[in-house]
């Protein structure tokens, strides 16, 4: 049993407790939302904060009168309990609990598993965190929508940032977790690298297993080969261990690190992560986002989340917020189209098409292939006053259109059409301000 547990009952009880009678006459009492997230296993480093965020957001929504007058009620399912337990429980939520909307999931594997089920069960599903670009590229979807970017723009942004800030590197090595995300992200990154800078030599491709406790041999090999750039899309405990061991053995001294998911580990790593490491956050959101950090709602959100959990929000928290923002926007849009009356489910789903909404970064749009357009924020780690961990500085924000495959196009084929001019893709640049 690879760590399995479910916090769902507690969470459900909690959600029930905070749920209040509906205000509007024509609105139903509740909008029931099923959310799959990791509360056990390694990926709970994302899932548990996101769950806390969902509870917090639901409280806020309900305190403010709900969505179109209906209180939201949450049901959590643990993704860590395994594929069968997950589908069984999701099925139960849809068929017995009759949830209005599902939000699934963190793991790309679970998304791939659940999207066809959602199509068949004809229930609105918001892919709130999973990154695989394959989902809407391989199959069309009516009921599934993704409210954040996918792996392609995430990797393109990381590559562009690297090429813009360190154009002269000659060798690169990769240390990714040995599972779909680690493989897919490297496939996208390396395919684009070959088009944009074909002379770069790939000196090592290492795929230690997911959850590997030790990277000594990998680090020795990297120390021996001394690549100019080391890419790792790892996350969670794996990334922590890798950074710790690499830092201790001086691997950071001679190589530039590109860690597109490090934003989620940076608070745990603290001073162990040196300055100057290229860091990403899987999207256009960061608690010190240069364009939104002074917004009142952003400040309130960060403060409240810190109060609740003791930590600054990480990307999975923002992804959860985006999913709720999209849902709220869809209900509002559908109600408007419905002459102000509470919309039915089909109307909400119709409203998702071409939906515009805003999380805690730049505004987002849902494309015709149900994929959201989300900008990407990249930067480098920097130690500054006031935080006991490095923050992200020298930020660049890339708009989504330029760095992702157009609707209906396969990402790898699209990358095949790129040329050196892609490096000139525009970005807004920002310095951290005290």
């Amino acid at each position, binding site marked *: *049993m*690879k*760590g399995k*547990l479910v916090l769902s009952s507690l969470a459900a009880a909690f959600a029930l407790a905070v749920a209040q009678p509906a205000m509007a006459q024509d609105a139903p009492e509740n909008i029931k939302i099923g959310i799959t997230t990791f*509360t*056990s*296993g*390694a990926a*709970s*480093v994302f899932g*548990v904060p996101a769950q806390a965020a969902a509870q917090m957001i639901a409280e806020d929504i309900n305190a403010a009168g709900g969505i179109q007058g209906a209180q939201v009620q949450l049901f959590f399912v643990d993704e860590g309990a395994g594929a069968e337990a997950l589908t069984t429980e999701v099925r139960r939520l849809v068929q017995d609990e009759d949830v209005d909307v599902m939000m699934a999931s963190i793991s790309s594997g679970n998304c791939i598993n659940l999207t066809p089920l959602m199509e068949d069960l004809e229930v609105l599903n918001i892919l709130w965190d999973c990154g695989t670009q394959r989902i809407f590229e391989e199959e069309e979807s009516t009921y599934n929508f993704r409210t954040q970017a996918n792996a392609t723009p995430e990797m393109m942004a990381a590559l562009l940032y690297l090429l813009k800030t360190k154009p002269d590197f000659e060798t690169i090595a990769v240390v990714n977790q*040995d599972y779909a995300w680690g493989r897919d992200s490297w496939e996208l990154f390396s395919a684009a690298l070959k088009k944009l800078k074909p002379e770069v030599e790939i000196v*090592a*491709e*290492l*795929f*230690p*297993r997911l*959850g590997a*406790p*030790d990277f*000594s*041999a*990998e680090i*020795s*090999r990297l*120390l*021996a080969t001394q690549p100019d750039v080391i890419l790792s899309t790892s996350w*969670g*405990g*794996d990334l*922590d*261990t890798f950074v*710790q*061991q690499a830092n*201790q*053995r*001086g691997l950071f001294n001679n190589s530039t690190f590109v860690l597109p998911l490090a934003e989620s580990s940076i608070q*745990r790593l603290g001073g*162990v992560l040196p300055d100057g490491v290229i860091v990403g956050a899987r999207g256009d959101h960061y608690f010190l986002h240069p364009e939104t950090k002074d917004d009142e709602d952003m400040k309130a959100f960060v403060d409240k989340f810190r109060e609740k959990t003791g930590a600054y929000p990480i990307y999975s928290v923002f992804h959860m917020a985006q999913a709720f923002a999209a849902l709220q926007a869809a209900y509002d849009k559908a109600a408007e189209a419905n002459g102000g009356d509470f919309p039915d489910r089909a109307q909400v789903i119709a409203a998702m098409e071409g939906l515009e909404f805003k999380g805690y970064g730049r505004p987002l749009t849902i494309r015709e292939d149900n994929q959201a357009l989300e900008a990407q924020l990249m930067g480098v780690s920097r130690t500054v006053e006031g935080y006991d961990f490095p923050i992200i500085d020298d930020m660049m924000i890339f708009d989504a259109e330029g760095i992702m495959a157009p609707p209906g196009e396969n990402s790898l084929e699209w990358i095949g059409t790129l040329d050196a001019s892609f490096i000139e893709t525009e970005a807004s640049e920002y310095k951290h301000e005290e």
Partner: protein
Amino acid sequence: MSLQILVLAALDGIAYGALVFLVAVGMTLVFGVMRILNVAHGSFYALGAYAAASLGIAMAGMGLSPWLAFPMFIVAAAVVGITVGGLMERFLLQRIYGYEETLQLLVTFAVFMMLENVQRLVWGVQPYFYSDPLRQLGNVNVAGITYTAYQTLFLPLVALAVLFGLRFFLRYTLAGSVIVAVTEDREAATAIGINARRVFFLTFVIGVTLASLGGALASPTTSVLPGMGAEMIVLSFAVAATAGLGQIEGAAIAALLIGLGRSMAVFFAPEFEVVMPYLIMVLVLLIRPEGLFGKTTARKI
């Protein structure tokens, strides 16, 4: 392949093998004496790591010297061994010594499931990291490559100390020779008045202590997180089975073999890194069904 790379791979292999040995030797010892394959062994590894990491973080919070971490590891391991191991032996295993191997195995499987859950309840799901002892020992330079002294020197030395300590204990002390007697012929040992129960208790506590010592010593090098025990169990099985169950010296060689196989794979065939321990185990067992150093026993008819 250059000589330098071989040296590097060997160093990594030794460091990794040392850690694996520290964990697997406890399982091997317990199996040799009690004929119980303890699935919960990996959980004790995890418990040791959690105990050491949280104690270490607490000590750092109190501003104590990081050098104190080293004795603390031993204390943490012993505490886990005596409390958790002792309780499990006393209240659970003692009831099942007459059972069939399969049922004994499943009892430990049940304990494994419960301990996995308990870890999450106590420590939550966020990774812990306590690397002060690793930094304290600094780095060493080999062939131009930086290694941590902790992994390259300290862990192998501890492994050697445990290996020779166990050998000495089993050969030259009374308690040790009693354990050996029970391992070799339980009936004869009981017949000459050895109290097998006490031997079992002692052995199990030692085995659990070794597992949690392995966990404690691993904690400065790795993230301590849920599920870390499940992988270690399979690795320990692989070592114990490759060595021949109950073979202490064999476990050292098998752990080394698996460590070297893994690090060589990283350098020369990274795709095989994950399968390496199992491939070694399958190959060894196919050629020598009783393990590298195991002995076959014929039924008396």
